[in-house]
């Protein structure tokens, strides 16, 4: 567990220390990637709470979703369609759903423990 926290800290410090400039039109890809990774993370937590968690699904979903979201946004920019809005919408909705499910599961567990 601690090694993953180390990885998180390392990633944060790397991200803060990098001062590579990217053009502003690519910044939206980054925001979509953030959303996708957050969505996958909460999905993983939910799956873990529902005891259907699988390593491979989580890891592959994490990277695949990031790449897919960025690719979709890229495609959208080149086609003149705001496809990144679709990605933001989809991931946003799923993020809230996942968080809602997690909350319910945690609440159920808590009441079980007390009761």
């Amino acid at each position, binding site marked *: 567990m601690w090694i993953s926290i180390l990885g998180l800290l390392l990633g944060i410090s*790397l991200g803060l220390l990098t001062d590579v400039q990217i053009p502003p039109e690519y*910044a939206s890809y*980054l925001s979509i990637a953030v959303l996708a990774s957050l969505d996958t993370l909460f999905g993983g937590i939910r799956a873990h709470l529902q005891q259907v968690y699988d390593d491979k699904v989580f890891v592959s979903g*994490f990277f695949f979703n990031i790449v897919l979201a960025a690719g979709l946004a890229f495609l959208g920019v080149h086609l003149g369609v705001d496809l990144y809005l679709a990605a933001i919408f989809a991931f946003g909705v799923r993020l809230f759903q996942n968080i809602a499910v997690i909350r319910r599961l945690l609440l159920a567990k808590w009441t079980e423990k007390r009761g």
Partner: protein
Amino acid sequence: MPKRNDRKSISKSIIFSLVFLVLGFIMAYSYSLSNQREAENDFSGGTFFEQKEQYRKELIEQQERNKELREELSGKQGAVQEFERSVTDGEEDYTAYAREAEELRRFLGLVPVKGSGLKVTLQDGDYSADYVNPNDYIVHESHVFQVINELYISGAEAIAVNGQRIHGNSNIVCTGPVIMVDGVQHPAPFTIEAIGSPDVLTASMQLAGGVQDQLVNDNIIVTLDEGLDIRMPALLSE
């Protein structure tokens, strides 16, 4: 079996750390990027007018500083003169040198001067239908040159154009309807003041076929005021 389990957990934690590394990197990078953008916005958020205002403020500050420095300089010059005067009082030998220095300084325009002299005013000629080209009846910088040179030749000790002292390195440039004396624009009419013997200066200006005649030929209105008490500022005052 426990060995295999160990290996599995190690590989699992490595994968997790990789995932978290990517996550942390993306989030931190996007955070720093948006921060940067905000800072840039702050910088370029100043509109053109604000920038102009800022530059103006800086300019004013510089000018104030210049003024302070100038005052300091004139104070120091006064101290030097005081010192020279005390030397003059003390030792007779240095009197001549100090006087010469004083005189040279007056020529260089470093000290304010006053005295009697001649005031020449050059004014554009009246518009006349006879002349198609307005250049034929306005004062040009060459006319100002002529007057200044004539005054210097006839022994003027100090000359000022529209109240601005002329020194050894002065330049007068024609820039359209105005002339620039050392970078300061002056419009017509031009008042050229010279300190010296008024009689001599006036006589030299009024020589037959001399400067005044030439200027009048160029349709310029020339006015001579002699014997006035003329005061000139030091060169350093802006």
